[in-house]
Every structure is written in C-alpha cells, then in structure tokens.
C-alpha cells in the first residue's frame, strides 16, 4: 500500500529545535500516561505497543 504524501504540510523545525526534543531516535519513547482533553479518557503510550504511532506534540496557540 502506498499513499501519496505530497500534500503533507510538515512543520519543520530548525536543528536547534529538534535538539530540544526529549525524543531520541533509536531510543524507547517516553512512557507517558495522561488524561485526554475531554477529561473522560486516559491513554498510556505503553498500551500502543504493537502499533506504529505518529505523535504530534503541539499547542492550539
């Protein structure tokens, strides 16, 4: 299966900004358990083992 990715609007950051990420390529992702923004659900990243994950860390501002 191959999908076109030409429309991806990647928010590329500077190398310095990448250096300010706690995520290290080749290392385990941090194990985090947090509520969602509705306050009704909790998600543990460890529960997603076995699946690929695309994680967006952002703010609405």
């Amino acid at each position, binding site marked *: 299966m191959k999908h076109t990715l030409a429309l991806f609007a990647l928010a590329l950051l500077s190398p310095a900004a990448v250096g300010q990420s706690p995520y290290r390529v080749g290392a*385990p992702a941090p194990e985090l358990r947090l509520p969602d923004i509705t306050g009704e659900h909790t998600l543990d990243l460890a529960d997603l083992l076995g699946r690929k994950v695309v994680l*967006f860390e*952002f703010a609405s501002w």
Partner: protein
Amino acid sequence: MPGWHDALLPWRDDDGLAVIGITEEQHPARCRLFAQWKGLDWPILWDPFNLTESKVVPLHVLIDEHGIVRGVNPTAEALEEFLLGEFPAPTTPRAEHDAGATLLEVGAHAQGSFEDLHARALSDLLWRVPGRMDAAVDTLERQAIERADDPRYAFRAGVARRMRYDSVEREPGDFQAALDHWTRALAGDPNQYIWRRRIQQYGPRMDKPYPFYDWIATAQREITARGEVPCELRAALTPVELAQPADFRAGDGGASEPDPSGRIQRADDGWIAVESAVAFDTSASSRVASLHFALRPRAGRAHWNNEAEPTIVWLDADAAHGRLDRQLLESTSRPTAAVSDELRSFTAELELADGVDTAVVRGYALTYVCEDVDGTCLFVRRDFAVEVTRP
C-alpha cells in the same frame, strides 16, 4: 497540522497506525475547541505540567511497533519510509520503568516519599480528583522550594496555582503566584520555550510571538455555522490572550479622570474584592508588564447591578516611575441578567522608566452594586493599588 491529519487518514485503523496528540497548554477546553473546529478526531492528551519535557512545539514523532522512536520532525520522505517500513524488535529489553512512566504512577514509590507525594499531587490535578486541589497545590509548592535547583518543580507549582485560580476553589494571589513560579522556572532554563510561552500568554504585547487565542472567535463562529455547539471554554479568555503583538505605546493621555475629587462613595473590601497580577515581558531587561485586575462582589454581601452603565476602572502611575498604555478601562462584561456576580477583568500595560525597578499603580473602579442583605443599590468607588516590581 490538519494537513497531517488528512494525509494520515488512509493509514489509520484499529490495529495499524495510531495517531496521538499531546497538547502543552494550560486550558484543555481551548484545545478541545480547536480540535472540534479542525475536525481532529484522534485522541489528544493533556500535558499542562510539561511532563514530556519538550522545550518547543510543534514536534512530530514517529514511534515503531516496538515503542522505539524512529523519527522526529521527519521529512515527507522519511515519514513515508516509516509508514511502509518494518522494524526489528530491539535486542535489549525495554527498561521496566523510566522516569516518564513512574512520574505519575501512584504507588510506584515508597509511600510518603518525595516521588510518591509528587505523583499523587500531579495525578489529583490532572484527573481533577474532587477535594484534592488545595493539598495538591500545597505539595507542589513545598516541593518547588525543596528542589529549588530544579526549575521543573517551579513550573509545575505555577501550573497548579493557575489551575486553582481558574477553579471555584481559587485563593487570593493564585494568579500572581503562578506567574512568579513560571518566572523562576524560566530563569533556571531560559531555552524552555513552552515555559516561556506560559508567561507570554498573559504578558505584554511587545513580548508576544503571536496572538495566542485570536482564533477562538472564528472557530466558534464557524462551528456554529456548521450547526454544532462549540465546546465551552470554562476558563474565561482575558484580552491579553487575544492581543496582537505590538510595541508598547503610552496612550490615551486625553482621557478624563472620572472622579478626580473623590466624591463618590467608597466601597470597601467587604463588598468588592480586587485581585491584581503583574506579568512582565520575558526579555532580559523586563521593562514592560501586563497589569491584570479582577473584581468580584463578595459572596453573600453584594452583587453587580447591570441595569446601569458598565464598570469602569481608572489607573494612574507616577510619571517618574512608569507610563501606562491606557488609564481609562471599561468592562467588557455585559450580562443580560439584571444582577450577576461574575469576575470582571481589566488589563493595561506599564512601561517602567529607565533605571526604575518599582512603580506603584493606583486606581479605582466605579460600578453599580446592590447589597445582598437589604437590597440597597449604590454607585460606588473601589480604590486599589498594585506595586509593580521588575523580577
């Protein structure tokens, strides 16, 4: 981000690709409105305490099926490679727990230990455990003092104080305490841009990298036009959170003081509570500050009378110490009910004079209130003053 959302749709399914968001902001309801507006239907986690320890956003992270990070802020080609690729299982076993796992894991540490109390306080606030707000705030503030050499604890204590400020359990001084904690945290790690943004959100226009929440009115309008009900915001927006970046400009010198001779009857603190908070710009010089004033009638003593003119505030500063951008402010609160008791917020900016570290801003509110006991309604003046000291 919506570009990512649309492009990843064909790849998502219950067993395959998972798309997860983590928002690094104080108020989850605002992100919820954003997600509703943009139609983001993947789970978005709330991380106001910056437990991920990211220093900037946005970040896009690719994690394989074994929990290994395979890319950070990838190019389109790298993302496609990730989606199509297969990754070997790691040869070394994953550590049972890392710092991120145990930070919020109540019971993972010795009962009563620093880590145990920290986990409980964060959990109580994140999951809004009823009746635990004050104890959690106290714990995080005490720990920020105990670990004064680690600015993460100061940041988290600030988040906790602002959470309480936005709740029905608010205590006097919560907002200023939040700003003070964040200022200390940022001094300990000036490259932490998520912490910096938390101050700038409430700070002066000259320090804003962008208007933080000016999209909200458009979002609410467009959501309503779609026939949906916009998510409720819970915490009220202040004008500074909507303000456009702009240089400081001393203004309205022509405004007339509404009660120059002080003839209007005074209302004391027993009728109207006044709270102030000062948010300085985050530059090294810190010369411009946002001044926040919040007025509320005392419960059981008085309430606003809305059948006359809106509340106005007059501010004055000694010109030798600083300049205000505005002196005459008018409440934007326009309740339709005849009486109400909502918080009325006012903001202005002050630029300290060269070589001056402290200025005193004096002011008063003129408003219509009614006594709860006998129903007497009066037009009153409530005096106040705030000391503005460079951090």
